């Protein structure tokens, strides 16, 4: 839509994992974990009806297996979206674990990543999806997509916060937080202007900047976790709607 709709190409994780450079590989996997661990964890909890401890093990194990079996390298962007591929891999992983009853071995040799499962569990408690509808493939896909968007937006908000600190624009982030993140229906530009003792135009400018940066960051992150330009464009529309041309 705007010029920041399609940020400058960065290496997709799909390409980066094939890199000979271990630093690049590690960065790619970090990016992938950051965007997907919560959706995968919540998905395993709901789709496979696993208690929190099992779901934590399975999530860790899934990402460990992804490394061991180089699942990302086998991904073909022409066949499916990365998001769908990972969900199906997660399904297959859980089923295989059940069959082989290898739970005690799961992730045994892999390094566990520090993941905040407690926070994910707390979020899951507030999940709005109807448990009765879980078996429907459509609702599963919808649920996974919703969690994926949430995860990506949360990362983008965190990146924006850091950017504001680096650029000494903390006030812009606080305004963004108050107006766009708080969910306060009573909030208004005027109220914020009074609260911060600044002109309303400053509030407008700060929010415009923050939203523009938020969008840019989210799209940059998205590009990293897409396997192709076409997938990126499709997923960008999922993220920001049809006007993301």
């Amino acid at each position, binding site marked *: 839509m*705007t*010029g920041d709709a399609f940020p400058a190409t960065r290496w997709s994780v799909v390409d980066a994992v094939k890199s000979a450079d271990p630093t690049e590989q590690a960065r790619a996997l970090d990016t992938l974990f950051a965007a997907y661990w919560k959706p995968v964890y919540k998905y395993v909890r709901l789709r496979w009806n696993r208690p929190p401890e099992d779901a934590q093990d399975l999530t860790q194990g899934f990402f460990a297996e992804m490394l061991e079996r180089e699942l990302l390298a086998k991904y073909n962007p022409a066949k499916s979206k990365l998001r769908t591929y990972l969900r199906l891999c997660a399904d297959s992983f859980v089923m295989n674990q059940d069959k082989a009853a290898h739970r005690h071995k799961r992730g045994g040799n892999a390094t566990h990543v520090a993941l905040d499962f407690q926070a994910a569990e707390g979020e899951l408690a507030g999940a709005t999806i109807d448990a009765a509808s879980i078996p429907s493939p459509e609702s599963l896909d919808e649920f996974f997509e919703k969690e994926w968007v949430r995860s990506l937006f*949360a990362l983008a908000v965190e990146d924006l916060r850091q950017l504001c600190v680096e650029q000494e624009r903390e006030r812009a982030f606080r305004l963004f937080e108050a107006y766009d*993140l708080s969910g306060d229906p009573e909030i208004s530009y005027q109220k914020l202007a009074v609260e911060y003792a600044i002109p309303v135009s400053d509030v407008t400018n700060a929010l415009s900047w923050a939203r523009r940066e938020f969008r840019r960051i989210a799209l940059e992150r998205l590009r990293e976790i897409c396997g192709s330009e076409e997938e990126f464009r499709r997923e960008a529309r999922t993220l920001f709607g049809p006007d993301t041309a």
Partner: protein
Amino acid sequence: MKFLSDKTVDRLRQNATLPDLFGTRYRLLERVARGGMGVVYAAHDEMLDRRVALKVLDVPAADGDFARRLNREARVLARLEHPGIVPVHDVGTLSDGRVFYTMKFVEGQRLDKHIETVTSLPERLRLFTRICDAVAFAHARGVLHRDLKPANVMVGPFGEVLVMDWGLAKILREPPAEASEDDPEATIVHSPKSVDVPADTTPATQITGQGTVLGTPGYMSPEQARGDIAHVNERSDIFSLGALLRFLCAPVALANANSPRRREKALEAICAKATEHDPAQRYASVSDLSSEVSRYLDGLPVSAQKESLLDKAVRLYRRYTVPILLIAAYLIVRTLILIFFHR
């Protein structure tokens, strides 16, 4: 990391996408449609208390030159005051740098939907001549539309015909009052597309690079399709109008099914001439094309068709059916009387 509720995710998505109209006199009401160059929203003009169509362009905020050019061209289009052209009310810049225009909010139907209810060929042709009037007016002011197609024409509730979406318009020459040092090759301004209908489903128009235009397949002239900007002129719009005329004449449940094929041949000849591959072979002006259609409507010969004797006889019969039948009846009666008295 902060947990984002569903509501917050929706709000973030909306705020990161919707134009921020704060500081303008407009209040956003709803998204209406996506056009070739941007998104059209319904907005409320707080100052004049009226509903307007507001189009936000897909222009990078950082591209100041392009935005300035769009602004200048919007001003030129705003002076195209014609009942068949949607007027531009206002031009402005959003806080994120994107350019927007506000225009009259048109209630009505797109031409392609509207003609489903118009089953008379003459009525369709009269609609066409009114489209020609608007385009001819723009041409007289040095403005090309470059994206004429059924989806870009609206028919209002009182039958008014409005040519929409001047998003790919090209200004050939500026009116004297607006003469400036700016690039005369510059392009693009617009009016709302399909303001009260769902988003256009025809293949999207696009603009690339330095104004190289890709119109809509089936309606764009060969020179446009080649991206041959130097040869895009009034005759390129005439090509599109020819294609539009062919669309209007398509045999879709026309009520006067007695329209003989010979008459359609004349119309087909007009369409063929308007859509000639070589621009020099097309009509010289939109007025010529419109006059030709009017001549057809009046039962007069059209320059695009070489009439055979039979064609001419049929045309004359169609045009003078009543007098011919009256004379024939008179002659028959007269003959019968003569025969009767002769006995």
